[in-house]
């Protein structure tokens, strides 16, 4: 349904009704901004990059054939834009090795986190993930993108995407474990 909605508005834009592009902007602005913010770590830069990504998408809308999901196509533009920007600024991804992935994270149970704080904890843990893994988790769990779609966005192979996603998930659970332990210590 969502994809159908997107196609409907995209066709309108392609036929010269530019104002319909605002639907696309409204719908995807938060996720595009979140990815940009995570990568660039600055709200001003992230907003500029998000704006640039939408304009780039608008300008190349004629190249969008509708074979893939529009969101996949848009996220690829955003992701590539952000990567180019940090390369220009000579910034690099935070090393993923500074968070030690523990084997017991496999057995982590989300029910162990108090229900009222669960979303807050997950968000805080997600924020601690490196940019590339944050994007993978966000696209897979939040945007329900498939492994194939994510591999198109991140330009990784499908198997590599799977491995990285698995690792990111484990890392997320490790961070949650640590957070819970810290919480426990402060209570005691």
């Amino acid at each position, binding site marked *: 349904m969502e994809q159908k909605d997107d196609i409907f508005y995209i066709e309108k834009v392609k036929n010269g009704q*530019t*104002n319909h*592009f*605002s639907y696309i*902007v*409204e719908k995807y*602005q*938060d*996720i595009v*901004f*979140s990815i940009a*913010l995570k990568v660039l770590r600055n709200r001003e830069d*992230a*907003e500029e990059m*998000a*704006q640039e990504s*939408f*304009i780039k998408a*608008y*300008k190349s809308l004629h190249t969008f054939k509708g074979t893939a999901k529009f969101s996949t196509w848009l996220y690829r533009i955003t992701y590539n834009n952000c990567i180019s920007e940090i390369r220009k600024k000579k910034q690099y991804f935070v090393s993923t090795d500074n968070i030690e992935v523990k084997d017991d994270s*496999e*057995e*982590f*149970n*989300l*029910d162990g986190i108090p229900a009222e704080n*669960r*979303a807050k904890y*997950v*968000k805080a843990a*997600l924020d601690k993930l490196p940019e590339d893994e944050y994007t993978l*988790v*966000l696209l897979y*769990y*939040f945007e*329900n993108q498939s492994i194939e779609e994510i591999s198109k966005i991140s330009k990784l192979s499908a198997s590599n995407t799977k491995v990285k996603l*698995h690792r990111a*998930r*484990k890392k*997320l659970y490790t961070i949650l474990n640590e957070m819970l332990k810290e919480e426990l210590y402060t209570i005691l």
Partner: protein
Amino acid sequence: MNELEDIKLSALLHEMKLESPKANFSVRVMNQIFEEDNVMEKIKSSRILGNGFWIILVLFIALFVVIIAVSNTGLLPESDLGNVLPGLNTSKVSLGYQSFFEKLGSAPLSIAGILLASSILLFIERFINANSKVFAI
């Protein structure tokens, strides 16, 4: 990895509120799009070279051709042509060749002249267009 935990994680992430840009973000994006559309429309509708330029250029080339035709140095006099055709006069043929290659040699200079003149004409035309109000008075 536990599939159930995976589903729970997905549900939790869906509850999560993503970061949002400033309130007028979509308005700013749309304004920039409309602005860029307008610029593109202007570029598409404005012709690079106006009619005036082409008329002046054609006149200039015509004048150039006339000058070349009138100053036909090196060409054989008409009275000698009859002598050339029936029998082969080698000295006249070689003279013809010489004249042809002399003309060919001056071709790059002529082309350069045309290009230079075109550039000047283009500049004049642009200047006139930009100051059309001044010239209209």
